[in-house]
């Protein structure tokens, strides 16, 4: 039996670009905090979007409290290195960190996995030290996330001795414990996001051994009609039907019918992809639906609405 989503301690939220990863990550964090969990949410690709979802200023490496029990931070690998050196290696280098950071930058650029491990390492550290009940990560998109999640293994391949190698061992242990860590994949019911989700499930499984806690289908369009109403709509969407509705209202009614046709078509094509997604998931993997929100804003209001919808499902 897998551990319920919000009972885990570390959640990586990923998915194809543009599917609403940050929306889901920020909403999950709000939901967890509202249920009494001390929660940290961290954006990994420093695009500064996460702050928008909470209506706060730009986030930094040091967590900002955005509401009760909810803290938000933005990953910065250099700051993470500094913290690591100080806490783990007791290197008194605060004053002389400049050249070291520069050197680090080159090593990190040349040696893959170093930046990733500092990212994942910092998050795993927060979990291990029990600074928070739950850490939600607005992780990289599906193309890059496997490299991030598999970083500790990659480092182990390259580095045979030394402190780093030892560090990677506890990290791998924490990450691969399904009661602690889970990946949440967000998809919209469209062709490519569904394809990438199904591929990613496979890759996370074979390349990282980290448990996938749930798949979240975001922006699911509402069903407009029941069967009888649909039959009615088909009769309305004829030259005679259009003329009759124009007669009963005004000339603009044809656009209303066109709009409904578009809504029906979109819903239909998306329903197919949603079915494909559901059918492609491994047995027992939860699929959570979040409806499309026809809202004007993108800020905290939307985040709360999505959190509420997630709350109904979780």
């Amino acid at each position, binding site marked *: 039996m897998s551990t319920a989503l919000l009972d885990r301690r570390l959640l990586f939220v990923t998915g194809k670009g543009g599917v609403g990863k940050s929306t889901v990550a920020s909403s999950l964090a709000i939901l967890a905090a509202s249920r009494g969990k001390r929660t940290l949410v961290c954006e990994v690709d420093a695009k500064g979007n996460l702050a928008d979802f909470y209506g706060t200023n730009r986030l930094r490496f040091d967590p900002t409290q955005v509401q009760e029990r909810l803290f938000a931070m933005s990953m910065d690998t250099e700051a993470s290195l500094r913290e690591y050196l100080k806490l783990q290696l007791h290197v008194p280098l605060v004053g002389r960190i400049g050249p070291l950071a520069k050197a680090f930058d080159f090593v990190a650029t040349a040696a893959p996995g170093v930046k990733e491990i500092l990212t994942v390492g910092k998050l795993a550290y927060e979990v291990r030290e029990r600074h928070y009940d739950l850490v939600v990560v607005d992780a990289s998109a599906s193309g890059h996330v496997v490299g991030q999640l598999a970083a500790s293994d990659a480092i182990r391949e390259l580095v045979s001795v030394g402190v780093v190698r030892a560090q990677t061992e506890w990290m791998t242990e924490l990450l691969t414990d399904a009661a602690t860590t889970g990946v949440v994949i967000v998809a919209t019911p469209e062709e490519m996001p569904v394809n990438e989700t199904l591929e990613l499930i496979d890759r996370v499984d074979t390349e990282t051994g980290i448990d996938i806690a749930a798949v979240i289908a975001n922006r699911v369009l509402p069903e407009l009609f029941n069967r009888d109403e649909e039959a009615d709509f088909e009769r309305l969407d004829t030259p005679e039907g259009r003329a009759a509705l124009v007669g009963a209202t005004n000339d*603009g009614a044809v656009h209303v019918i066109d709009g409904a046709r578009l809504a029906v078509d979109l819903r239909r094509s998306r329903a197919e992809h949603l079915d494909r997604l559901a059918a492609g998931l491994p047995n027992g993997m939860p699929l959570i639906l979040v409806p499309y929100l026809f809202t004007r804003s993108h800020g905290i209001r939307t985040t709360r609405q999505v959190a509420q919808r997630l709350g109904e499902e979780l």
Partner: protein
Amino acid sequence: MAARRGSPSVRLAQLTAAKEILLSTGSGGVGKTTTAAAIGAQVAATVDAKVLVLTVDPAKRLANAMGLKTFGNKEVRISPDLFLDAGVEPAGELWAAMLDTKQSWDDLIARHAPDSGVRDAILANPIYQNISAKFVQSHDYVAMERLYEIHTAGNYDLIVVDTPPTRNAVDFLDAPERLADFFGSRLLRWLIAPYRSRVVSVASRPFYNIADRILGTQFLEDIAEFFVLFQTMRRDFTERAEAVSRLLGGQATSFVVVSTLEAAPVREARYFLDLLHERKYHVGAVVLNKVLPSTLLDPDATAAAKSMVAEPETIAPHLFEVLDNDEHAPRMLAEIGASYLNYQVVAQREAELRSELGTQAGTVASVPYFSHDIADLAGLLELGETLWES
């Protein structure tokens, strides 16, 4: 004014005629790959030209749409039969290639290495193997390098590039320069010094002591070896990187910025447009995908939709003859009225975002929501047609 500037259609057709390289850019999920493929297919269909679509999309979607089973570093021609199947007699030729990062890096090393000893040593170095195979940013450089190589070979009239899915849309632009900087850096020399001389200066000893504790000697030696070997190719690489930069900024190249009308992609598109202008790159067009129809903003339709929601019972009797006195009519009417108003909210949001983008971009082509996914060449040509005519 619109008439003087010409419709986007003319501009897109002109753009493809005037330029040798088009780079399709934008954030993830906006239809970059599909747009690049559609532009390539449309040019090959309508103009007597040899067109290459170069993609880096790891999802291999383009391969499916172009009827290719395998799709690799080598350029392959899309069968004219596929055009005929789609009801089009192609005036030109359509070719396609996908970037194989690892293979491209290996080719690059083989070309620049001073001798076979250096070549083999680099290819066997664990740091190199990781960079070339896994390291995401290495896509950026090698993609632009490959573009340069293909362009220089001169086999195509037009090359349409689907740019790498970078975290930051501009990374690939900076990649050649970064590489050149890297070779020129003192830090690199410093980093490889102990490997060469085996003498660590007093100044750098603390760094090595720490690095050694953290990473272990073997790893440091692998890194140093890699840098030392790479150093032998420095001049070639630097010159090449500069040439790639020149090509991207030159007369032959133009950028097509692709976006949907959602907040995050638009923000990225604006940022990218600013940056391209600032650096004096040529921006040929902005392509907006999945755009809702403007009829969703019609005032009469809005009034009609509102009355359908407010008083469906009053309107339904007027439809008796069409709907056979159906009891479900009121709810159906209320639903479609409500749906119109829902989509109107989204269309308004899109219109706002569009006006924000519009001030920055000259040519804007809009592509409506297609009710079906693009799964074959016919679909790409339909999209191409829409781009040309929108």
